[in-house]
């Protein structure tokens, strides 16, 4: 007997199904993508028992003629590509034409479809065996019902997880769909209960509000930047809120939901110095890349893509996120948000105020000046005049207050000064040395062993920052000159506290060591809460803060600026 035989078609399809149909979620994904490719504007999904009993996806897409429908259930039948060249820059979701037959081969499938209202076709497929084809009355569109998934594949059944876990997978797919295609009306019924009902949404933010609730959506700030041929848009979490709730990640490339650690890392990189180390922001980003720069056909589940030059994409993402964080919309807002937006379908929050704008506004470009421009700015030596400073009031020796366009704005004096100094120290560390004042009476510091080691590890950086320090045997330091970042600077105390804070550090890369030192020193050197500021000092701080790249956050990720919107004030006075 011959030992090698061509496999029966059903077996081939079952093997292929293992590749495409892993779990109920992948069935939903394939069906939904088919619906979208058919131009559906409404998709209704019904799921029973986590998709293990039944999955039904109904759409109002183009539907199929009877002959097409029969063909669609055959392998590698697709309407989406004809020749191999079409594979490059493919724009539709599915194209291999294997999804439908693969699913059909491991389930009971009912297909009802009509390419025009009225005369439709119903086909039943049982474990891959085509059954009866009959007439059916249906509105234009397609409904596919998949029941008893894997009923004929005993080897796969044990791998189906609990209904709850399979449902979680399906809701991820639904979420991705809802976010990538907010023009589509979407409903999901699970075990007879409606769990999602989303109308077409005018903006990503309102879609998110519908999906996860308005308070969540309101914590996000918009990202929108173009660098070269790459457009990055979406919503990201305001640094002040990062870590206060579970993190959600959602990434699309050219409208396709994918996973990509590189892009996430780049976006997180942009949060540096605005959130505590280790805090992970919620990100919802869409990256649009020219079709020839990206290969989407590298993953069987199409969950990953390959970029021709990943670095360009990551840099564009980092730039876009940083730019968004530099805007004042990312400053913390005040007031219980739940009150303001009682229903989950409320309009997106209008937190996009130019916080640092007094009635005479600062230019957006001034606030958003990218760090890379500093070199040229220093060279050309002549820059924009200082921004108009509104009348500032110091409150509780801690906050500066002024009237902004959208309400009353508060600035935390310590946090703000910390941000200003941090950026100045970073510039000094990256670009050269700073003036330093020789002391008439050198300062002697006696350090513990840990602080002594911290000093040795950072000796060169301290020198760059303007501290001329000699070791004096043991762990005694003689400080001969100090920088003068501001007139109230207390050099010995700042140095001691900085070394103390650094003493717990393990070795880190040069860049992070710079940041760590600059952040620590900025924190220790900044004016403290409780210090009374003169009007001149307040103005100088305001101007300096406005000139920083990330004015709304200090180096610990706390907010430097908080706005009490007029709407909140009016509400409290009963005027609204």
């Amino acid at each position, binding site marked *: 007997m011959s030992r090698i035989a061509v496999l029966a078609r059903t077996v081939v399809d079952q093997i292929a199904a293992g590749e495409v149909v892993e779990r109920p979620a992948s069935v939903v994904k394939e069906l939904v993508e088919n619906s979208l490719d058919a131009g559906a504007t409404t998709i209704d999904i019904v799921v029973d028992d986590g998709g293990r009993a039944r999955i039904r996806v109904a759409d109002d897409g183009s539907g199929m003629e009877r002959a097409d429908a029969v063909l669609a259930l055959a392998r590698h039948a697709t309407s989406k590509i004809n020749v191999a060249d079409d594979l490059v820059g493919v724009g539709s979701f599915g194209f291999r034409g294997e999804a439908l037959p693969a699913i059909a081969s491991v389930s009971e499938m009912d297909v009802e479809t009509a390419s025009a209202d009225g005369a439709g076709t119903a086909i039943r497929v049982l474990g891959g065996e085509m059954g009866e084809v009959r007439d059916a009355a249906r509105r234009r569109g397609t409904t596919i019902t998949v029941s008893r998934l894997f009923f004929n594949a005993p080897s796969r059944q044990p791998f189906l997880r609990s209904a709850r876990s399979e449902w979680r997978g399906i809701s991820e797919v639904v979420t991705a769909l809802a976010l990538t295609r907010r023009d589509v009306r979407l409903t999901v019924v699970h075990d007879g209960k409606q769990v999602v009902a989303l109308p077409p949404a005018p903006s990503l933010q309102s879609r998110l509000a519908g999906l996860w609730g308005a308070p969540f959506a309101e914590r996000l700030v918009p990202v929108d930047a173009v660098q070269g041929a790459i457009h990055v848009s979406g919503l990201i979490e305001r640094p002040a809120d990062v870590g206060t709730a579970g993190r959600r990640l959602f990434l699309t490339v050219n409208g396709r939901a994918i996973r990509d650690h590189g892009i996430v890392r780049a976006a997180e990189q942009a949060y540096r110095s605005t959130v505590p180390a280790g805090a992970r922001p919620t990100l919802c980003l869409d990256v649009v890349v020219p079709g020839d720069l990206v290969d989407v056909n590298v993953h069987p589940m199409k969950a990953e893509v390959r970029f021709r030059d990943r670095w360009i994409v990551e840099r564009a993402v980092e730039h876009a996120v940083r730019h968004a964080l530099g805007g004042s919309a990312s400053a913390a807002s005040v007031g219980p948000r739940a009150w303001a937006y009682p229903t989950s379908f409320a309009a997106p929050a209008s937190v996009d105020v130019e916080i640092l704008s007094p009635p005479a506004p600062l230019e957006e470009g001034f606030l958003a000046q990218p760090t890379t421009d500093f070199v040229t700015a220093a060279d050309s*030596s002549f820059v924009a005049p200082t921004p108009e400073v509104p009348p500032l009031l110091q409150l509780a020796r801690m906050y500066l207050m002024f009237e902004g366009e959208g309400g009353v704005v508060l600035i935390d004096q310590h946090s703000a000064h910390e941000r200003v100094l941090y950026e100045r120290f970073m510039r000094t560390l990256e670009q050269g040395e700073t*003036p*330093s*004042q*020789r*002391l008439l*009476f050198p300062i002697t510091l006696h350090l513990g062993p840990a602080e002594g080691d911290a000093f040795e590890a950072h000796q060169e950086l301290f020198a760059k920052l303007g501290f001329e320090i000699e070791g004096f045997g043991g762990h005694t330091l003689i400080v001969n000159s100090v920088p003068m970042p501001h007139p109230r600077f207390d050099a010995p105390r700042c140095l001691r506290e900085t070394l103390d804070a650094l003493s717990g550090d393990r070795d880190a890369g040069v860049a992070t060591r710079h940041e760590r030192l600059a952040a620590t020193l900025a924190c220790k050197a900044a004016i403290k809460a409780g210090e009374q500021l003169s009007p001149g000092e307040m103005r100088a701080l305001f101007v300096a803060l406005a000139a920083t790249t990330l004015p709304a956050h200090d180096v610990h990720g706390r907010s430097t600026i908080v706005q009490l919107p007029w709407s909140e004030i009016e509400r409290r006075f009963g005027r609204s």
Partner: protein
Amino acid sequence: MRFTIAREKLQEGLSAVAASVPAKTTLPVLANLLVETTDRGIRLSGTDLDMAVSTELMADVDVQGAITIPAKKLVEIVRELPSAPVKVSASGEQKITLECSRSKFKLLGLPKDEFPSFPSIRFGESWRIRSGDLQKLISHTAFASSTEESRPILNGVLWELRPDQMRMVATNGHRLAKMEIPINATEVPSSDLIIPPKALEQIRRLFPAEEELEVARGDNHLGFRSPFTAVYTRLIEGPYPNYEQVIPKDNDRIALADRNALIQALKRMSVIASDQTHRIRMSFNSGMLKFSVQTPDLGEAQDELPINFEGDSLDIGFNASYLLEILRNLPTDEVRLTFKAPERAATIEPVGWDDTAKYLCLIMPLRLVD
């Protein structure tokens, strides 16, 4: 308590004392002035607890007594009164009536007992100092003291009293001013006192130059007294840094320059100098001093000044505002600057000062970045 006093006399007394009343205070009675009758008339006193000022005014006293009156309101009232005798009377512990011509005021005061008592200083063993000498010391040195709170000792001005001379020194750790004046005070012991500049400012302001002051020390207070007016101040405790050690003795590069021309050039450079460091660069060569300043994000400037310079040429950086402060306080048209090296202290002194006093200022350079 009841007395009558000329309005001008009262206003003069109030202006002397009012400066010692704190603008903000948590102790309500400190916002008041103590008014008490004396053998010669009345005495007005005010204090912020660090410093106290009292002055005695001639007045016709009918009934002895004492009370405290809100300082600000009293000053405002007396300023607006017509030029006529002012009758002040107190009934009970708190009610004050003030009458002048046809105007009549009633004020609420606080009982005298709530007013803090002055430090007890025995003037028996005191130095006798000419007020003019003290004024000269204060106006030439106090400006150099520190305003930061990190080293409280530098917030004060050191006053060294020796049998043959007295000296004042002030520094903020970056610049220093020192002046000494010969005196004759053999009968009292030498002493080193560290005095808050705020009190010195009152001393400079209140006593006429020709008056002779008695100065005496209490436990940690110092009192200055003339026949009618007294100022008391808290002393700052602790050893003053050894300033003698940092005054350079071997500076061998010497510049002579016109003080006004130097000030003008520095002011021009200051326009461009950084707001934080006020850093300017000075290049000394024989015959010419070149200034230059470069501030990132702002711009740059250069200037030149013909001077007399001996020694190897030198590039050195300074905080222009420190230099200007020192130059403004120098009493002569010509000044001498001495240097050793770009990281060492420079000195600035008057040239040809016709005075018994000796004056020296010191300034530490800023590191230049090339």
